[in-house]
């Protein structure tokens, strides 16, 4: 199910999502509708353009960009693409390659850190322990003061559990993580 990181991205995208990137005729409708494209270093259609070449240098640009981590998987692009391209799974392939090979855009490290903290919580408990996750995130990123004012308000409203809920079969969950190399 996983493939060689030196394979051209276009091939890996085809293998994992069944889609050919040649279908994209660069109309830009995805970038026009993407809620965060103005924040991105590379708008979505340009990321596809880079992959279309099958060139390792251009593939690297696609993997190392900030955009893929800003992508919300909101599916606005795929809902409107005239060629019916489902872009979010393609972004997944890029993100997975980026994370696995450790080539993450400098500005995106916070976002990856959050995902990793999230998964750490699931690995331990099988469910999300929100307080634990946020604490882990703060340690990873050094953002100790973020949302400091929000926390007491939420706690008082009874929205945050101070203790984790866990699944019973934590061993199985851990095995799942191990066998998927996470």
């Amino acid at each position, binding site marked *: 199910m996983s493939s060689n990181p030196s394979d051209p991205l276009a091939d890996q995208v085809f293998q994992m999502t069944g889609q050919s990137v040649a279908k994209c005729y660069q109309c830009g409708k995805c970038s026009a509708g993407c809620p965060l494209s103005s924040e991105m270093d590379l708008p979505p259609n340009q990321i596809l353009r880079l992959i279309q070449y099958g060139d390792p240098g251009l593939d690297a640009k696609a993997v190392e960009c900030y955009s893929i981590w800003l992508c919300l998987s909101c599916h606005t692009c795929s809902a409107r693409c*005239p060629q019916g391209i489902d872009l979010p799974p393609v972004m997944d392939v890029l993100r997975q390659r980026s994370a696995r090979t450790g080539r993450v855009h400098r500005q995106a490290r916070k976002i990856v850190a959050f995902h990793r903290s999230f998964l750490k919580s699931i690995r331990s408990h099988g469910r999300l322990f929100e307080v634990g996750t946020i604490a882990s995130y703060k340690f990873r990123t050094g953002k100790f003061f973020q949302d400091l004012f929000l926390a007491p308000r939420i706690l008082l409203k009874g929205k945050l559990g101070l203790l984790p809920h866990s699944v019973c079969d934590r061993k199985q969950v851990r095995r799942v993580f191990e066998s998927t190399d996470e």
Partner: protein
Amino acid sequence: MSRIGVFVCHCGENIGATVDCASVAERSASLPGVVHSIDYKYMCSDPGQNLIREAIREKRLDGVVVAACSPRMHEPTFRRTCSEAGLNGFLCEMANIREHCSWVHDKGEVTTRKAADLVCMTVEKVKRNRPLSAIRVPVTKTALVLGGGIAGIQASLDIANSGHKVILVEKDPSIGGHMSQLSETFPTLDCSQCILTPRMVEVAQHPNITLFSYSELESLDGFIGNFRARIRKKARKVNEKICNGCGLCSQKCPSKKIPSEFNAALGNRTAIYVPFPQAVPNKPVIDTQNCRYFTTGKCGICKKLCPTGAIDFEQADEIVEVDVGAVVCATGFGVVQADFFPEYGYGKYKDVITGLQFERLASASGPTLGEIRRPSDGTVPQTVVFIACAGSRDSAKGIPYCSKICCMYTAKHAMLYKHKQHSGKAYVFYMDIRAGGKNYDEFVRRAIEEDHAHYVRGRVSRIFDRHGKLVVKGVDTLLGSRPLEIEADMVVLATAAVANPGAEELAQKLHISYDSYSFFSEAHPKLRPVETNTAGIFLAGACQAPKDIPESVAQASGAAAKVAALFSKAELAREPVVASVHRCAPPDYSRCTGCFLCETVCPYRAIEQETLKTRDGKTVRVVARVNPGLCQGCGTCVALCRVKAIDLDGFTNEQLYAEVRALA
């Protein structure tokens, strides 16, 4: 004893590279009944044909097998060659060793053997061929033209001017089609109605053209040269002969708020109406769905006021039967509406309009008398966004093709808007610019360079409203694909050209093919663009595929030329490959049992019932009979007949069994 000649063609490399033609000729020489067997590079060439003619004369051949390409290519050629040498053309058969052999297999002994087998089968068949003569049928020299748009008008005029009669059928109350709805045409910016209406009048006044307006084709039977059409003249509720076109009825009609089809629903019309001032014929029609008299039983003002008493509420549809020799199908195209686009509001925003609606705004005879105004509040828009490829080139929406005309008319729209509103801003969102015709690219450059239409390369993701403006969220892919948001007063969508509703049913009535988008299929995309696969039925204009006016006119004239060629003969020779029902001497008279399964399945309705009578007039029984004039030789009846009472000349049961046995 048979004397068959076999001629194996190399067809250059087409057959020769895969099949060992010399070997096939050699093997065929030893088949029983074959007295002459050769191979040659190009049998269809002059020297090739000479080889056949010489062999027929020298070897006294009584049957010829040409092993070559598909009979669809050259069967008529070789039949002619044989008859020129004195051998009936129907004693010549072709064995297809190209499409059925060399083009689908690899080179090798197996392939050569297959080719030899095919020849062997055909030799056995030819031994049982009978000489046949062409069936001659008369040609009715009247053409039926369906559709009164520019293509239909052009075809009618050309056919009429070559001396033949034309019946022109148009489903709307007036001829003119979409061209009459346009404001100005590219690339010259000629006023569309100004160049069209003289032709429309010419059609109305031409002695050879009979115009059935507000009429539709009910059914079409028959075959090339001998069609019988039934036309439904829908009831206008107005006696055309008495009406003098004064217009008093529509002036006084109290139902004034019906969306006008001619104005693409941007304006209203009355229940009794003439679609536009230059309509041909200039006679009104009553829309009975919206007329107060017909829906509630009250009113009748038009009838009371009509000075000539031409209103006839009791008028009924009338079916007219006509005999025609050829049909030209010129039924045109439609456009998708704004509610086709979920991301552009599902038709919610009044100021998001289609290209056709913009034409009506820009047109001097339109709802705003030629001023570009917003449909919502009638103000003049200061910023107009034109979106090209709205619906076309969009597989996700089911229209993957390019509609061909939109790049040009979008440039035209931007120009027209700028001409009328010098201070206004025109943005065009495009993907590519397709301007391939004569003076077309220069036209688009003029829009950009002289009229300052701002072209942005990118598609629009969505449109929504905010504080009375339309927010257009697009992108400029030439500027790094940054999102581009424009607040527009009006948006014009260059909507896709699609087949007209009812195209599929019409195609089925005519027995012509159509594609998955319901555009009618031409016989060959390159070499036979105005013919269909149904003999005698021709195509002209956008019903075949989206195209602009010069192409429609050219195609119409092409179709007219084909019709004129057809009508230039006194008689048509039909292929004698037709079915016939067994007849023999009394007391049996015929093997046919009278079950009439054949009659039920015949697609051409060529089977009739015949009463067999004895000498003194007593009825024996009713059996089937094939009308050789209608039969197309498809063989369905032969396959179904349970007692083998019906057979097909040229493909008899005996011949086919012989072919199969030859393989064993």
